[in-house]
């Protein structure tokens, strides 16, 4: 699949994802999924070289590894099997980006199941690592299909902890921090007095009304919502190297 000329929506998403990791310092950045991995590796390749990243499995690699490539070159810095990853999670030195089948105004996330626990209408992933991730370290989310089915007033079951529940826990939730929710339409954050979800920027070509129509609850929307920034030329060069097969365009086709 060949990329259209100029920055695409997927390129903008990749850069927005990369921006989530900008201020993390020397921690494990662990974006899960195709575009998250591309965006995370873009951050490491450009403005956040101190990030540690996995090869998708049990190694921490110091070079920028392309996605969707058979047997890529890996410069291995460390061994990080699952058991060691839990040490990283529980020490707090990690920023994960996960998916979300449902997410609510406080950032409570569900990818476990839809319906009741006793007999779900749709069994999804299960809790995976979401409860432990969200209570221990920074978390962001990636939603490639921004819609009212995903952005819901209330999730069916909470796998990732949101800000209202963290507030109820008090000091026990002192390591909880939701950074951003990046979607195919916009970037959202929780930089509001009560940590309700806020529209931070809209991707070029998307209006605020588009986002409102695709969201099943009321967002905090400032008077002036800026556009999500476009990729720099150097970033486009890196994207071509990180994602030579254009997998990002398959995940987020250009509108």
């Amino acid at each position, binding site marked *: 699949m060949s990329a259209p000329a100029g920055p695409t929506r997927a390129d903008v998403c990749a850069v927005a994802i990369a921006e989530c990791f900008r201020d993390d310092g020397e921690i494990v950045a662990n974006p899960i999924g195709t575009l998250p991995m591309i965006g995370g590796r873009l951050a490491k390749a450009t403005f956040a070289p101190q990030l540690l990243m996995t090869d998708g499995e049990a190694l921490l690699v110091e070079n920028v590894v392309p996605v969707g490539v058979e047997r890529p070159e890996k410069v291995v810095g460390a*061994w990080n099997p*699952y058991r060691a990853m*839990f040490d990283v999670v529980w020490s707090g030195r990690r920023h994960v980006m996960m998916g979300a089948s449902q997410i609510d105004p406080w950032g409570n996330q569900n990818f*476990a199941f839809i319906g009741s626990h006793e007999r779900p209408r749709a*069994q999804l992933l299960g809790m995976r690592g*979401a409860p432990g991730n969200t209570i221990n370290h920074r978390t962001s989310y990636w939603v490639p299909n921004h819609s009212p089915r995903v952005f819901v007033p209330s999730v069916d079951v909470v*796998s990732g902890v949101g800000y209202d529940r963290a507030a109820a826990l008090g*000091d026990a939730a002192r390591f909880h921090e939701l950074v951003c929710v990046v979607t195919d339409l916009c970037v959202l954050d929780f930089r509001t007095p009560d940590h309700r979800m806020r529209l931070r920027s809209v991707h070029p070509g998307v209006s605020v009304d588009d986002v409102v129509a695709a969201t099943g609850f009321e967002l905090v929307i400032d008077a002036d919502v800026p556009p999500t920034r476009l990729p720099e030329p150097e970033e486009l060069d890196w994207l071509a190297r990180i994602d030579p097969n254009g997998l990002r365009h398959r995940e987020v086709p250009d509108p």
Partner: protein
Amino acid sequence: MVPDKRVTIDEVVAEIRDGMTVGIGGWGSRRKPMALVRALARSPVRDLTLVSYGGPDVGLLCRAGKVRHVVYAFVSLDSIALEPHFRNARQSGAVTTTELDEGMFLLGLQAAAWRVPFLPTRVGLGSDVLACNPRLRTVRSPYDDGEELVAMPALQLDVALVHMHRGDRGGNGQYLNVDPYFDDLFCMAARRRFMSVERLVDTEQLLAGGPPQSLRINRLMTDGVVETPHGAHFTECVPDYPRDEAFQREYAESARSDEAWEAFRARYVDVTEAEYQSVVSR
């Protein structure tokens, strides 16, 4: 020299009785003791509780009607994100579940291995893990901080089944891929422990395959060892063989209808291990 703990697949399955709690090693669709799982699926046993970082082991046993309850954090085929047979079992109400975070799961095995009733953790606070598990309790730190934590109870297993690349007749086992997963913990958390291996070798030959730290399972952790070449098929067992993605797709498609499952079952489950290996190597 080492004792001789060699057993047959049928002898392992004969140890597993109705209602037991069975832990299965590996992770997702990686290095699962599938020869043992297939034999269990053929057996008359029922009402098992499975404890697994789940893959096709969970889906196959659910579909075969062996399972009453699953203790899990995920059930996935990796390249196919959602395990279709497990989904069907959940959505039809055929099995009940304990919802856990992946790390809580590790702590439950570790608590059982260390013979303590629980291990404290921050994990689970604020999420619906607690709401889904009314029996889960919290515990308050007895120190000045007074912090309230989740008391993850021991996941005591009746039987553990794991698959390693190499082993000796005494029950020492070696992994040759990059991640040991939690196979040693499954063994330490169980009363009876059985290891299948790709290849049995003399103890003297173990270090020819990998360094001392690859000898993750020692014979304190095992009661029986059985050689099952290609025995993790169709899950990944690198460096010996990759996941059989084409076969995995065929397995996943067998969840589409009762007819598809019965055809799969007749061809690949209700056959001996030798017949299975002969069919899948064609």
